[in-house]
């Protein structure tokens, strides 16, 4: 076989398809000092680049970046597409959601015997409570997702705490998803649906999962951009919350 060209050596080094026949090239390299030296020089130069250290960022970095860009994201809400329906639309979603939220707000979601009726709470207050509760739900979901994404494992990983949190979140998530769907907000419903699959996966997991199962879960979250989308929805909910806070009675939201 002839000598390998510089380009062929690059393809060989990167194991790139469509280059020289790998077996033939290996045979040639075994017998040709010149090509072997060339390949070693190439490898040495390229590996030197890899050896250069990169400043590290810790696991909180994702959240820090998000905090920094939040004000700039909020600027665009009026002009760009909206992920979250108008406040009034959510408020009309039905008393079931409101009852749940009010109970949730009291910290006694399913145990509470005497739940206040929706009628006892004025409509604007109901709307605000609902927004606060959705915001709280999304914030807790984010915390869980961040923890899962930052988890590194080579062996089995204990997930009992995450499982507990996921079980708590599944119930409320289902309700918010159904509400969004009923209100004709498929964007929000889709995000909550994707989130719910992750929550269900975690809540049905054993207390310990393997490193492969963790990697698969992380891949699911990443490949669908679930954390990113949840952050966007939460931010928009907060924006609406703020606007609801400054809302004057008698003016449209």
């Amino acid at each position, binding site marked *: 076989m002839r000598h390998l060209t*510089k*380009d062929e050596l*690059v*393809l060989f080094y*990167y194991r*790139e*398809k*469509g280059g020289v026949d790998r077996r033939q090239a290996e045979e040639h390299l075994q017998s040709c000092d010149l090509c072997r030296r060339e390949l070693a*020089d*190439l490898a*040495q*130069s*390229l590996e*030197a*680049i*890899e*050896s*250069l*250290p*990169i*400043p*590290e*960022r810790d*696991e909180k*970095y*994702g959240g820090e*970046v*998000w905090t*920094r*860009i939040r004000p*700039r*994201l909020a600027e*665009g809400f009026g002009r*760009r*597409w909206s992920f979250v329906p108008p406040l009034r639309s959510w408020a009309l979603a039905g008393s079931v959601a409101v009852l749940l939220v009010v109970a949730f707000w009291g910290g006694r979601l399913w145990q509470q015997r005497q739940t206040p009726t929706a009628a006892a709470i004025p409509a604007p207050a109901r709307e605000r409570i609902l927004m606060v509760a959705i915001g709280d739900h999304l914030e807790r979901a984010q915390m869980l997702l961040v923890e899962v*994404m930052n988890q590194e494992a080579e062996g089995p990983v204990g997930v009992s705490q995450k499982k507990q949190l996921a079980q708590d979140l599944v119930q409320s998530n289902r309700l918010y998803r159904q509400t969004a769907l009923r209100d004709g907000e498929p964007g929000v419903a*889709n995000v909550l649906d994707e989130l719910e699959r992750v929550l269900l996966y975690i809540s049905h997991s054993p207390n310990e999962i393997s490193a492969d199962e963790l990697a698969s879960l*992380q*891949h699911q979250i*990443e*490949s*669908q*951009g679930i954390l*990113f*989308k949840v952050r*966007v929805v939460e931010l928009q909910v907060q924006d609406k919350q703020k606007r609801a806070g400054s809302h004057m009675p008698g003016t449209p939201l």
Partner: protein
Amino acid sequence: MLTTRAIFRLAFRMTGNEHDAEDMVQETFLRAYRALHKFESRADFGTWLYRVAINCSLDHLRRARRREEQPYSEGLPPKEESESLSSIPSGGLTPERLLLSVELKKKLDGAMAELSDRERAAFVMRHIDGCSIEEIGKAVGLRGTAAKNTVFRAVQKLREALQPMVNS
């Protein structure tokens, strides 16, 4: 896995300095947010976000080049050496290795600056992130052979620049 930290690493490789890399990470997320409605749910979000980051870095490099070409920037002082030093973490390095790293980084920064924007993106994608030629082509807007040649040119240029130092 494409975490924010991975985007930072990509940005650092592309820009060569921490400050610009930070800006690029933020810009990537801002753009992703603005373009989220264009993201098809069937596609892989990580791949999509990676492309957004590559496009951000290409734009960043173009802007940086334009600034350099402007006569107004001629009077500006060159970047302090301390900036390039500060971007190299010292933990676990002996003085000799730190010195070598600093020298190597200076050489690499110089060599990377000589690459075209596409060559730089293609090299980082191939060498650091292990993307295939096909993926590189799609991300930087080149067909297969052109993408392959872009990687070749980048590798040869970097090799020529670094080889004397690496071999010594």
